[in-house]
């Protein structure tokens, strides 16, 4: 019986280690203790206007953004700074797919959308361990 409960505990509390997992991380705007000292808006809020969503079973990451008025470049960097992928973004486009089904090792990636007018960066971590399913 203990084995059964242990197994369930693992399922619930360590499930990310037994299945395809995806990780997002985001920082708030800087703040100080004491309300009057908070920078930016009153909620010190960081909003993502460049978002990465993963469908690991399909092997794709969906990258969404506010459509640029003119063309832009989406660079995806590995955590060590080397370039992993470049995707051209046409004017008016709101999302692109990044195929991670092959030759994309697990790890943290920085996604950067840039043209002469905009520069946005998001971070996404991918842990694909489907063999553990």
């Amino acid at each position, binding site marked *: *019986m203990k*084995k*059964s*409960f242990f*197994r*369930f505990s693992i*399922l*619930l*509390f360590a*499930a*990310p280690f*037994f*299945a*395809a*997992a*995806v*990780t*997002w*991380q*985001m*920082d*708030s*705007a*800087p*703040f*100080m*203790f*004491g*309300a*009057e*000292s*908070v*920078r930016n808006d*009153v*909620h*010190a*809020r*960081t*909003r*993502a206007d460049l*978002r*990465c*969503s*993963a*469908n*690991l*079973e*399909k092997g794709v990451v*969906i990258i969404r953004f506010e459509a640029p008025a003119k063309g832009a470049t989406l660079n995806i960097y590995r955590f060590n700074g080397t370039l992993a992928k470049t995707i051209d973004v046409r004017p008016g486009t709101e999302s692109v797919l990044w195929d991670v089904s092959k030759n994309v090792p697990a790890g943290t990636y920085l996604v950067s959308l840039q043209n002469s007018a905009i520069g946005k960066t998001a971070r996404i*971590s991918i*842990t694909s361990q*489907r063999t553990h*399913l």
Partner: protein
Amino acid sequence: MKTSILAGFLTLVCSSLLQADLSSVAVPATMLHLPDAGAGVGYSGKVEYQINALDYDSVYVTLSIMPASGGEALALSEISGDVGLIRNVKVQRTEDHQVFFQTDAAQTGMEYIARVTVSATISAAKTEIQSYLTNLTKQNKGTIMGGGGDGFEGQGAGQAPYAVPEIWMSDGPHGVRPPQGGQATCFPTCAGLACTWDTALAFLQGQTMAEEFRALGKNCALGPALNLVYHPQGGRASEYFSEDPYLSGRMAAADVQGIQTRGVIATIKHYACNNKETNRFNLSANMSERSLREIYLCNWKPSIDVGCGAVMGAYNKVNHSYACSNKYLMTDVLRDCWGYPSMVMTDWGARFDDFSSGIRYGVDIDMPNPDSYVSGVIAVQPDSIVNMHASRILYAHEIIGDLQAGYNRTAYGAALMGSAHRQVARDVGSAGIILAKNVGNLLPLPKTGKKIAILGPFANQCRLGPGGSSAVNARDRVTPQQGITALLSGVGAGASTIVTDISAADYVIVFVGVTGENEGSDRPNLAVQPNDGDNDAQTALNARPDNTIVVFTGGSAASAGNWSQAPAIVIAFCPGQEQGTCIADVLFGNVNPSGKLPVTFPQDASQAPPFALAGADLNYPSSDTAHGYFSVNKKAQAPLFNFGHGLSYTTFAYSNLQIYPQTISAGDRVHVRATVSNTGSVTGKEAVQLYLSMPSTAGLPVRVQDLRGFRKVSLNPGASTTVDFALTAEEMQVWNPNGADYSGSGAWQVPSGTYGVRAGTSSQRDLQPTLSGSFAVH
């Protein structure tokens, strides 16, 4: 097996797009606070984050507070809220979450950032469920939605490796009642357990009881029973924890957690508003949506939050719709608001408004019928509906792990009715005995040199609880007379003796009680009847007016009578099979009583809510009046004994109430701290109670006070300790029906204004010790 599971799973999930992202992280400036040493609070704050369109069922969240300039994260002394594993995340919607933190490592004037990390996955459990859904036939799925076997089994179906085993159910809430007969340890009823005001004991009792379920081959406990005690005459009042939703909810959640640690599915029942047994198959419990949300439903949510595996739908209607097919209860609240992912079963033979709505909104297993629900489902329902129900049943299987090879349903055989279990029954039973009155410190009784007479019809009865599904056939039973005799026999030379002639006695103990508590019928009387000990109490008071001790036995409260005139009163709410020992230990001071009442004892019927035994429906008072202490507080009535009342053989003092911050924004939390000291001469336990008085808002009259926290502490003579409470927005909110009542358009709201805070020894606001203060929400 593994390969086929993976293949099946990928086939299914690839048909839908899984998406998730973390879209904002915010630190509300108004909820950042500097340290307050007096309140025991360090630098503190709240972080809000938002997750969009989250399809994953397993989401793990961490929070770090870091210097903005870089460097190591601060050590957090406290972190709470939506952090760690977030269960039951709903799909296809934006979710706002919040985390509260405290740290002593910050510095004033430095900039920090809050870093939220969200890791999402599809759990192995969900993966396996999907595999089963792929491989089971529609007939298989329909089959597991019915009862079978001896009338207490959820049916099994399918072929290996996708065979779904039966769910082996058994009553009841305070011990096993095997359908084929058999004996087990009888623990205190839920009411008796609630008298302890100790969640650790609730956990322990649940865990111990679950070992007996496994020992008897059962892996689904049909309990705990979680309705509120609306009226003392309710036939199942003693099966329920309390009249108060906060106490009920926390005690039940601990019980549920304990049960499920032993691989047994806990079943909270009877959802919802099963407060009257007379005409229970037809009556409608009618109340406002506000009453439902603030009182009669919110006691269920803590058990849902801790992952309870099963819910049992009630027999009755709620606002004219049968509970088992009630869209508002089963879908809008249970599934959509609370995100409950596991199975719902009917009470045995419960009715639906109609079969279609029962399937669409209601239960997943129709007990105990083997085929009526099954055939109905298969005949008319699409695959999506069948899969929905089957997946919830499979989720319950995942909780106990019995889909895995090697699962041993029968375990803990050696523990059944063993000495360890008897000890737990005794410990919990003793902790729930209540000293309600003790004029002149009549108790504890001397163990030597006195003559003691014992009267009353219940002196030789071990009162285990009501009849019906909660009746446990205990092998070992200790009656009060046996317990007293055994205690005194162990004293040795000069021990006090038991005499039959009360005129020769120094003390008279009278065992009185209430009767007629049963599943299916209500108590006919609120008062203790003459033949149930009230006449004996009068006889004893006539003979020994200053030395009469009344022990009240039964499952719930009674009104005043001769019995309540006694100078010393002990209350024992069905404290289990060891009750004779428990009561004797308290009477003679081996155990210092620490129980507190989970219900109000009214002076008379005028202090209880409407409860006509005849009549089709039960119409509840408004939410600001409700029942129990809510009602007597609102009407400024002085009951016989207040909710939360309970004395000790020692004395306690409260001091140094700290409330921080004094002013907050809606959504922030408030820390309350008080010092408790044992000012007497013996070790004792005190259940410190925190009550909140809401500000009155236009159009939303509020109750006088609501229990919002409790802590049980043990103190040696002269010792002190500090108890801390954190009041969250959830504990400050009212349900604003926003127009038409019961429209489903209402919302929770934290009203602006001044909130009264009181840490006290009972709900009686002027009973010492008590400390009061306030804070404001703007």
